[in-house]
C-alpha cells in the first residue's frame, strides 16, 4: 500500500509564538517542531504499513528549516520524504495550500493520504476536506481508528453516543485525532534516528509539482489578516468554597458562563 502522510512543522506551543510584523503571517523562523497531530498521522501510517505492507512517504510543504519535522517522521519509521519548498508558497492560505499539496500528491501517487485533523498554528482543520475535494477522492475525517481491507477503508469517528463507522473505497484522504495509549505516536529509537539520515528526502519546487504560481502565495490568498492584537491576559479564576452549597454555586458559575 502506498501511504502518504502530510506533516507540518509548526512553532513549538511550549514557547512564545509570534506573527510577523511585515505581512502578518506566522513567524516560522525559530523553535519549529512537528505538529502534534501529524505525529499521530505518522503513527497510524506506520501501523497500516506494518499490517498491510507497502511504503510510507512523508510529504511536507514549508520553508527549508521544516526538515526537522521530516527527520522526526523518518526517525519514527517512514521510508522517504518529499519536501515541497518554494519562496512562491510563502503566505499561502488553506485553500492554496490544499491546491499545492494536491498537485504534489498527484505527482507522488497514493492509495491513502493521512493527515492530522488540524495544526497547532493556524487551527483551521479544513485541509483534509479540501484535499479530498481537489483530488476527487472520499474523505474520512476525525478518525480515531483506521482499518483497511483490500480496497475498502473504514474509520471510527468518536461521537457523544459512541462512535460512527465511516466506510469508503481507496484511494482516500483520512484525517486523524489524538488518541490515548497505546495508540500514541512512538518515540523514535536511536537506530531510527541514525537510519533517518540515510533515507531519501526529495526537494521539489512549484514547477516540479506543476503548481500554477497564480494560485498560491500571499497574493492569491482568499483569507487576509487585516489586523491582530495580543490576546488579553487571562483573568483570575473563581474559587468556590463549599459550605454545603458548593454544587449549586459551581452550577451557577457554569450557567453564568453559558456552559450549561
Amino acid at each position: 500500500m502506498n501511504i502518504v502522510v502530510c506533516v507540518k512543522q509548526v512553532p513549538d506551543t511550549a514557547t512564545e509564538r509570534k506573527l510577523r510584523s511585515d505581512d502578518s503571517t506566522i513567524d516560522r523562523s525559530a523553535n519549529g517542531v512537528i505538529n502534534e497531530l501529524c505525529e499521530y498521522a505518522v503513527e497510524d501510517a506506520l501501523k497500516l504499513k506494518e499490517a498491510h505492507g507497502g511504503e510510507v512517504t512523508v510529504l511536507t510543504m514549508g520553508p527549508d528549516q521544516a526538515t526537522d519535522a521530516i527527520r522526526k517522521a523518518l526517525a519514527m519509521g517512514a521510508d522517504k520524504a518529499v519536501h515541497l519548498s518554494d519562496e512562491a508558497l510563502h503566505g499561502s492560505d488553506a485553500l492554496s495550500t490544499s491546491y499545492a499539496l494536491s498537485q504534489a500528491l498527484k505527482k507522488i501517487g497514493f492509495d491513502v493520504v493521512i493527515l492530522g485533523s488540524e495544526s497547532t498554528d493556524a487551527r483551521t482543520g479544513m485541509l483534509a476536506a479540501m484535499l479530498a475535494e481537489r483530488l476527487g477522492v472520499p474523505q474520512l475525517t476525525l478518525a480515531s481508528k483506521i482499518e483497511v481491507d483490500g480496497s475498502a477503508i473504514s474509520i471510527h469517528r468518536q461521537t457523544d453516543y459512541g462512535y460512527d463507522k465511516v466506510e469508503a473505497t481507496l484511494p482516500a484522504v483520512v484525517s486523524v485525532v489524538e488518541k490515548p495509549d497505546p495508540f500514541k505516536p512512538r518515540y523514535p529509537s536511536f537506530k531510527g534516528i541514525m537510519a533517518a539520515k540515510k533515507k531519501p528526502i526529495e526537494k521539489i519546487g512549484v514547477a516540479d509539482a506543476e503548481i500554477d504560481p497564480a494560485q498560491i502565495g500571499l497574493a492569491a490568498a482568499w483569507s487576509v489578516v487585516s489586523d491582530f492584537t495580543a490576546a488579553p491576559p487571562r483573568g483570575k479564576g473563581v474559587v468556590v468554597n463549599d459550605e454545603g452549597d458548593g454544587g449549586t454555586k459551581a452550577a451557577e458559575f457554569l450557567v453564568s458562563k453559558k456552559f450549561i
Partner: protein
Amino acid sequence: MLSEDHEDLRKTVEAFARDEVAPVIGDLYEKGEFPYDIVRKMGAMGLFGLPIPEEHGGMGGDYFALCLALEELARVDSSVAITLEAAVSLGAMPLHRFGTPEQKDEWLPKLAAGELLGAFGLTEPGGGSDVPGGMRTTAVLDGGEWVINGSKAFITNSGTAITGFIGVAAITGRRADGKPEISTIIVPAGTPGLVVSEKYSKVGWSSSDTRELSFTDCRVPAANLLGQRGRGYAQFLQTLDEGRIAIAALSVGLAQGCVDESVRYVAERHAFGHPIGHYQAMQFKVADMEVRAHTARLAYYHAADRMLRGLPFKKEAAIAKLVASNAAMDNSRDATQIFGGYGFMNEYPVGRFYRDAKILEIGEGTSEIQRLLIARELGLGGL
C-alpha cells in the same frame, strides 16, 4: 557540540521524560513502586539497547548515547535513570564485553529490549569500597556446576518481576600470589538457593529496586561463568570505570533538573513585593547551580570522549563522577532552599532531587574512592 544523531536522541529522551515520566513518577516514588510501565516504554524506544550492537538486538549506538539518555531522564527523575544505568552499564555491558557467544545470544536481545533487567552483585554486607578485602562470597565447581555461598548487599534491579539474572562476583580460588581469585558467575533469577530479600527502605531512589541477596548452595551450570575464570577483578574494574561516566551523566541530569526547577520558581514566587528572582542572593544561587551543572557536564563529555577514542580514561571518569555527584548534592540543597517550605514537600520535584542526590556520592565508588583513584593516577599511590 553534539552530533545531529546524539542531539536528536537527547531531544527525544527529553520529551519522553517530560511527557511520560514527570506526570507519574511522584506518585510511584511516594508509594515506593517500581516503574514497570515506564521501563516497558523505555524498552520500546530502545534505550536499554543503546550501546549494544544491532546483531544482539541493540541500537548500535555508543556509550555516550547512553550517558545522554541518563542525563535527560535524571533531569526529571533518578529512580528511572538508575534503573536504566544499572541494567545497561552493570547488567548488559559486562555480558556484551566479556560474555561467550552463547551467553550473548541467550541474554542480550532481551536485555536490549528492556524485557529483562540485568543486575551486578559486587558489594557485600562486609564492604563495598574494599574489594576483594570485604568479599566473602565463594563459588566452587562441583560436578559441572558452580556452587555459590555468601551474600550481597544493595544490589540494584535484583528483585523486580523482570530481573533476568545477577552477575555475581565470587571468590573461586587462590592465586599463586596467595590473593583471592575472583570470577563473575551469571545467576538467573529464581535459581534455587538464591534468596532475594524484601526491598530496603531507602532515603532516596524510592522507585528503584535495591535488595540484599543470599546464596546457600546455589547451583548454576559451569557454563554460566562470565568470560574467563579469575578475570572477575579486571572485569569489574573496567565495568566500574565506564559506569562512573554514566553515574556522572546521571548526576549532571539531577543538577540540571535543580536549575530547571529553580529558574521557573524564582520567577513565579513573590516575597516583599518582587519575584524572589529579583534578589541577588537568589540569582547568584541559581548562577552557581548552572556553573556546577555545566562544568560537570564538560567533565563527563570529556571522559566519554576519551573512552570512545580508546584512550585511557580512568582519571577523567573519576574526576567526572566526583564533580558531578558533588554538583548534584550542592544543587539539590540550593534548589530546596530556593523553594523554601515547598522544597521540603514531596509534591515538588526538588525535594525528591534532594533525597536522591546523596547516594550519588556513595554508589559505584564513594567520593573518597574517586579521590584515591585520582591520586593514584597522579602517581601518589605508593607513597
